[in-house]
């Protein structure tokens, strides 16, 4: 059994001075962090979930769910040669939910609860209207119309709006070269969202001297970012965009796009100094210069224009015409920061104490202090518990203002902008406040080189926590929590701990690897572990099909939505699935598997020619059509998790047969909503864009594989049977049956090619959503799901034959649709790309 717990490793290190010396010498360059933080040949994946708690709206119950973010991250650090290192990183986050778009006096009633024509009541953000002031310009309470009911009321409240799910993707890399006492690296990357894109490059270096007791590091970076923020056509009448006229373009559907460009130059230097055999200190300085569009284009500032011409009601002295102006931030920002950290080994507990302080200031008037402390406590048997605490406090930016009063009439937008401040923002991130957070990380090292880290953090943002007092009022307070889990696999450590025999063994296994798109294709020998990653990308585009035949727009409009007319249809859909494959063989005849997954999907739509007219005005039944057509939809998050057991039935050397029994546990969301706009609720996004199945599913399979000489072949039957009548939102997906058969040939000792055929049948969605769905196209109806599909797959599999990465297997397969016979009306299929990486030890 290759499992060595870290207690044994530490024991080994203690017992051998030479081993300790080697370990220390190996570890020290890693101490300095900056050029390459992860160990050599380490791969890691992480999932994180950020969940904000509800905001206080002072008696108004928001129907918006608080904001949540699902993040998945994977990275790898590969040693190309002893001196050349390559690090890549991929991050993706999907977020949705309520966020403040502005702040207003409570008396203004910005979070009005109203019923809309679709019969669904929800809070509509109100950003324009009248507000009444006393003679001292304090807002006064009213009954919601023009009757003053109380005195001055200076309470403030955020106005909340909600965002449909949106996804950001970032890929970046670093290429580094290491000398004996120095390192240099160059890196770059890009981050893409629907409305924001940035590209960046960086240079870094490290110098060790004083026998590696002192390390100096530094770096330079340049980032260029473009904003293309879409202001909805239904929001536009209520938002004054006058300050950005030359940065706005109109869209075909009557919306506006605010365009902005921004550049950031950054530099940092850091020093790490070993103080003694138990302590070290680190210090750093950073500087960033930013120029260009730094606004949040979705934040507005409420301006009460005092109009003397409008008579004030009894009990009030002035009438303010409240209008929402896009926020205005300075174009230039200089940011400086310095940090000082101290890390000490506490021998009595075998623990490490880490203290860090960071000071920040910028020329926007923000000073910030961050204090952090954590305690790394090994618990034995490979477990480590790290509690941490963090306190952060910042001053408000000079131009932060909850709302503005201007002594002039709005006059249909013909007011004097010079009488407003040059810059203003009510973004709570620029206000004065403090934040306290505490968390814990639990880490377990399973086998040498494989570890799992679980983390939790709770964070509270409060005006009252600001250092020295004077923070923002408690209306802006909020809390969030984050959970995360990370799996790290260090191949170098694994390779060092496993003998050559085991390498030969999994080369034998994977020499006859099944195509990348086939799951449960092989079993492990007793005592073996396997970690793997599967990626699947499938897309649909082109024609709409009815059954197996192309169908015209007017025919979809008339028949695609049952007895209702259809107005739109999908014209592109993409699904990405990231799956972890963790497999363990307690015996030769039984293997256990766990497969957590992360999914994201995106979809674009178009109007159907020949669709009947529908009211697309505020409150109209077709109010969402312009959004659907112009914005597309995105969803993402953690998907259903599979747990499986594989049972060996036959193994004659050339012929193998095994059975799989498994369950898919419904962790994925099935209640993802589109945001309300145009006075109409978005409702649930259609079935195919929900992340999970919503039901507990039974997933049996039977797999046969054979190999002879350079040839391999196999066949598999698999199915998905929904074990529940419906999930939490009322529906269940159709059952699935799939059969596949393949053949493979070893082109060389490390590369093989495969060809296979697949037949799949899936039933329609059963039942339907038990919550509101805004039905506008075929995808919103249960009968337009599933079908009968023939595909042909072409794949390549490779096994790394030698070196540090020996035994790693990679597979890729393209599945080309051959015949499609849909249930109902659906978008044609383009195909599916599968890619896998596996390592057994």
């Amino acid at each position, binding site marked *: 059994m290759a499992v060595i717990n870290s207690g044994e490793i530490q024991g080994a290190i203690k017992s051998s001075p030479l081993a300790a010396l080697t370990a220390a010498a190996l570890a020290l360059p890693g101490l300095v962090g900056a050029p390459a933080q992860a160990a050599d040949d380490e791969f890691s994946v*992480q999932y994180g979930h950020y969940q904000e708690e509800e905001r206080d709206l002072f008696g108004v119950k928001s129907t918006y769910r608080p904001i949540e973010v699902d993040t998945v991250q994977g*990275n790898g650090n590969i040693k190309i040669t002893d001196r050349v290192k390559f690090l890549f990183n991929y991050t993706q986050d999907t977020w949705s939910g309520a966020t403040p778009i502005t702040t207003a006096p409570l008396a203004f009633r910005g979070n009005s609860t109203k019923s809309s024509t679709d019969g669904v009541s929800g809070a509509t953000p109100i950003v324009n209207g009248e507000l009444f002031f006393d003679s001292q310009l304090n807002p006064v309470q009213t009954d919601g119309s023009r009757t003053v009911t109380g005195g001055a009321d200076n309470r403030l409240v955020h106005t909340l709006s909600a965002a449909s799910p949106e996804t950001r993707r970032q890929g970046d890399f670093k290429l580094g070269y290491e000398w004996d006492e120095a390192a240099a690296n160059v890196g770059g990357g890009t981050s893409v969202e629907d409305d924001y894109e940035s*590209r960046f490059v960086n240079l870094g270096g490290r110098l060790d001297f004083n026998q590696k007791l002192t390390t100096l590091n530094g770096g330079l970076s340049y980032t260029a970012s473009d904003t293309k923020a879409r202001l909805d056509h239904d929001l536009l009448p209520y938002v004054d965009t006058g300050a950005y006229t030359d940065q706005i373009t109109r869209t075909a559907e009557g919306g506006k796009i605010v365009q902005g460009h921004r550049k950031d130059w950054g530099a940092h230097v850091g020093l790490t100094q*070993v103080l003694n055999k138990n302590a070290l200190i680190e210090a750093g300085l950073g500087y960033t210069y930013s120029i260009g569009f730094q606004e949040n284009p979705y934040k507005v500032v409420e301006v009460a224009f005092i109009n003397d011409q409008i008579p004030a009601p009894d009990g009030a002295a002035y009438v303010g015409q409240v209008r929402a102006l896009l926020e205005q931030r300075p174009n230039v920002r200089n940011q400086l920061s310095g940090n000082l950290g101290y890390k000490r080994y506490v021998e009595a507990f075998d623990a*490490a104490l880490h203290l860090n302080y960071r000071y920040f200031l910028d020329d926007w008037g*923000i000073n910030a202090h961050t204090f952090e402390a954590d305690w790394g406590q090994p618990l034995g048997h490979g477990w480590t518990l790290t509690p941490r605490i963090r306190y952060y406090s910042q001053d408000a*930016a000079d131009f932060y203002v909850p709302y503005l009063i201007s002594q002039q009439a709005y006059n249909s937008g013909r007011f004097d902008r010079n009488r407003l401040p*040059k810059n203003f923002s009510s973004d709570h991130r620029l206000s004065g406040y403090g934040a306290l957070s505490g968390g814990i990380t639990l880490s377990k090292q399973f086998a040498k080189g494989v570890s799992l880290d679980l*983390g939790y953090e709770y964070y509270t943002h409060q005006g009252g926590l600001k250092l020295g007092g004077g923070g923002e009022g408690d209306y802006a307070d909020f809390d969030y929590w984050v959970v995360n889990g990370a799996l790290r696999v260090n191949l170098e450590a694994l390779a060092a701990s496993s003998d050559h025999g085991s390498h030969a063994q999994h080369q034998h296994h994977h020499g006859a690897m099944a195509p990348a798109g086939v799951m449960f294709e092989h079993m492990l020998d007793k005592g073996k572990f396997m970690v793997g990653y599967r990626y699947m990308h499938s897309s649909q585009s082109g024609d709409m099909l009815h059954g197996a035949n192309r169908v015209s727009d007017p025919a979809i409009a008339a028949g695609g939505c049952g007895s209702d007319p259809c107005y739109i249809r999908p014209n592109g859909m993409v699904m990405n699935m990231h799956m972890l494959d963790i497999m363990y063989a307690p015996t030769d005849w039984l293997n256990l598997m766990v497969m957590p997954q992360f999914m994201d999907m995106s979809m674009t739509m178009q109007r159907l020619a020949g669709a009947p007219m529908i009211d697309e005005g505020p409150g109209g039944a077709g109010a969402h059509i312009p959004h659907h057509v112009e914005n597309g939809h995105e969803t993402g998050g953690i998907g259903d998790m599979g747990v499986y057991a594989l049972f060996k039935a036959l193994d004659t050397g050339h012929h193998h047969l095994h059975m799989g029994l498994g369950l898919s546990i419904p962790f994925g969301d099935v209640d993802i909503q589109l945001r309300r706009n145009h006075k109409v609720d978005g409702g649930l996004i259609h079935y195919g864009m929900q992340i999970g199945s919503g039901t507990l599913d039974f997933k049996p399979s039977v797999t046969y594989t054979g190999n002879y000489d350079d040839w391999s072949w196999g066949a598999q039957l698999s199915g998905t049977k929904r074990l529940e009548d419906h999930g939490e939102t009322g529906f269940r997906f159709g059952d699935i049956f799939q059969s596949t058969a393949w053949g493979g040939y070893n082109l060389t000792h490390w590369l093989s090619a495969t060809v296979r055929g697949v037949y799949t049948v899936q039933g329609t969605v059963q039942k339907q959503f038990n919550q509101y769905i805004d039905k506008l196209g075929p995808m919103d109806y249960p009968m337009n799901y599933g079908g009968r599909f023939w595909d042909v797959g072409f794949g390549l599999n490779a096994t790394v034959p030698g070196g540090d990465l020996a035994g790693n297997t990679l597979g890729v397969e393209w599945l080309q649709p051959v015949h499609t016979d849909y249930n109902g009306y659906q978008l044609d299929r383009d195909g599916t790309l599968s890619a896998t990486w596996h390592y057994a030890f």
Partner: protein
Amino acid sequence: MQNRNCANSVSRPIRFMRVVPFFLLALAVTGCAEVAPWQRGTLAKPQMALDPYPLHSALRAHNYGAREAASGVSSSEGGGCGCY
């Protein structure tokens, strides 16, 4: 209601300069003991790594960055908005 402006912001870097001696002092007190390579076993323990959980740290930094004004300066790595 306060209508603030940023006219006084030019003096901010000067305030920062007052902090610099603090860091220089901190660096100066690191007149350190000689630690021979074979005495560095403790420093090589996993819990003594400068950042034992870099992925976790990146996620936390990203969350702070989306919610706080003072973020992202020390790393100079570039990156996206993610400003939910």
